[in-house]
């Protein structure tokens, strides 16, 4: 029986991530559609939690196909749930987890399946991926795409604070070396990489070399969110939601991505998340940060208060972000090496990586008894950063 004091804690603290699943991830999943790989993710995550559709009363699953046919209502119908809570975030990563947690904590439902999948969407390979090409009239004609947007921010930081290409490359090499040893990573066995290897790869959008950038790939992901009480009857050890918040600083890819507009995106979301958890950055054992480009890791360490503004380049050096360092990042190989599935897959992966570390299921990349994982989505160029903290113990 919980005491009254405990009951007064943050409502998220009765929320558990009770299941996670990554389907096979690949550069191309031949024979799959976005819908079929999403259904694999849905089946896989129910298996992981040891539940059936009868245990579920909320759905936030959407596939990334061009058809636009399979939104949460379709998956709810397919699962045969009858009238059920439907999410509005369409499985969008941390946003979907926090939306589901809020719905559960307020009694709108008790168990939500979150999922996403994407396959066969990126086919015009002479161009950058379609979801990286903004159509805005003050952007598109200048040849912008996501890498160039983030490069403008990195370049300004280098100018202001002396951040170096070697420091950017150190981030990339660290993430890619995690993927190199991850048997489930698309780029497993591609390394090991030194920072010089990163700098020797061809330039994409200066200062980003090819290996400073996330890959594009296909795959599916699923997550089950439920109450602590219900999780006790499910298969996996509970991973508790400690805190989480989201923020956005305007529409993505419409305005000049200046450091003044982008540098601090996520700062308040991190502060609120830490406040909910009653923790600080010192308590974080696993940093599953969103890694679309190398510089974005440096920016997040600054924005989240792990170091001061301008200090991120030095902060990530000397092994600090390696698997045996104080703040290990992207332990599955991240978007650069594990997978960067289109649609919401890339977002959900960050949550799943944290859950796997806390469960002790990260194989040869397992950290030594991590208690708290911090996952993030978004990024400065896209003008949004979502943050969540998870832990092994109920706070």
């Amino acid at each position: 029986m919980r005491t009254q004091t405990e009951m007064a804690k943050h409502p998220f603290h009765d929320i558990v991530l009770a299941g996670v699943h990554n389907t096979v991830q690949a550069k191309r999943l031949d024979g799959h559609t976005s819908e079929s790989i999403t259904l694999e993710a849905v089946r896989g995550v129910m298996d992981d939690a040891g539940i059936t559709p009868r245990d579920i009363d909320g759905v936030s699953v959407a596939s990334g196909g061009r058809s636009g046919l399979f939104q949460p209502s379709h998956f709810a119908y397919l699962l045969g749930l009858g009238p059920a809570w439907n999410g509005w975030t369409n499985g969008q990563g941390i946003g979907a987890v926090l939306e589901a947690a809020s719905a559960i904590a307020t009694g709108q439902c008790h168990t939500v399946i979150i999922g996403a999948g994407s396959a066969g969407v990126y086919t015009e390979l002479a161009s950058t991926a379609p979801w990286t090409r903004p159509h805005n009239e003050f952007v598109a004609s200048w040849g912008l795409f996501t890498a160039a947007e983030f490069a403008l921010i990195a370049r300004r930081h280098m100018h202001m604070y002396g951040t170096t290409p070697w420091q950017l490359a150190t981030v990339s090499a660290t993430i890619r070396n995690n993927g190199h040893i991850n048997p489930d990573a698309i780029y497993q066995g591609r390394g090991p990489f030194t920072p010089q290897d990163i700098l020797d790869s061809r330039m994409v959008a200066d200062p980003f070399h090819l290996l400073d950038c996330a890959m594009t790939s296909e795959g599916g992901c699923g997550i089950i969110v439920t109450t602590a009480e219900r999780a006790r009857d499910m298969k996996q050890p509970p991973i508790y939601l400690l805190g989480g918040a989201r923020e956005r600083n305007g529409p993505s890819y419409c305005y000049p991505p200046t450091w003044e507009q982008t540098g601090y995106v996520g700062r308040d979301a991190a502060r609120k998340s830490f406040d909910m958890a009653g923790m600080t950055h010192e308590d974080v054992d696993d940093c599953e940060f969103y890694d679309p480009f190398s510089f974005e890791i440096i920016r997040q360490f600054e924005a989240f208060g792990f170091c001061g503004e301008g200090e991120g380049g030095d902060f990530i050096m000397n092994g600090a972000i390696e698997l045996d360092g104080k703040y290990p990042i992207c332990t599955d190989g991240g978007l650069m090496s594990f997978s960067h599935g289109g649609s919401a897959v890339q977002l959900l992966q960050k949550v799943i990586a944290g859950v796997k570390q806390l469960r002790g299921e990260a194989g040869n990349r397992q950290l030594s008894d991590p208690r708290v994982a911090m996952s993030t989505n978004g990024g400065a160029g896209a003008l949004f950063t979502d943050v969540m903290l998870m832990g092994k113990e109920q706070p």
Partner: protein
Amino acid sequence: MTSQRSIPLPVPSPFTKPFWEGCRRQELLVQKCQDCGLLTHVPQPACSHCLSPNLGWMQASGKGAVYSYTVVWRPQTPDFEVPYVVAIVDLDEGVQMMTNIVDVDPAEVHVGMRVEVEYRKMSDEITLPYFRPAAA
């Protein structure tokens, strides 16, 4: 360098149309608030400082300095010829604008470089405001 084949061109909206009509006349227009006097770019339906709807247009000098830039080698689409330089320019009037820096070796572009507008007609309706190194 950037005499493009069929790059995506702006489709003006009701409140961005005056900006693009200005470019066609080789005038770089930014919005000026009739109430607070501050400038807004990109064009908005209201002042980005005080939310006043009383916006007018003023002609900017077309001169400024590079705030940040990236030399792109992997084009957005094959319609862009690489390398091309995407930049944010600080206009001398105090607003920031995205553009391409042209008529220069990309290796010479740097933060703080003085630049000036160079208009390139893309269609009957659209003239794009590129920037080039400022005349000495």
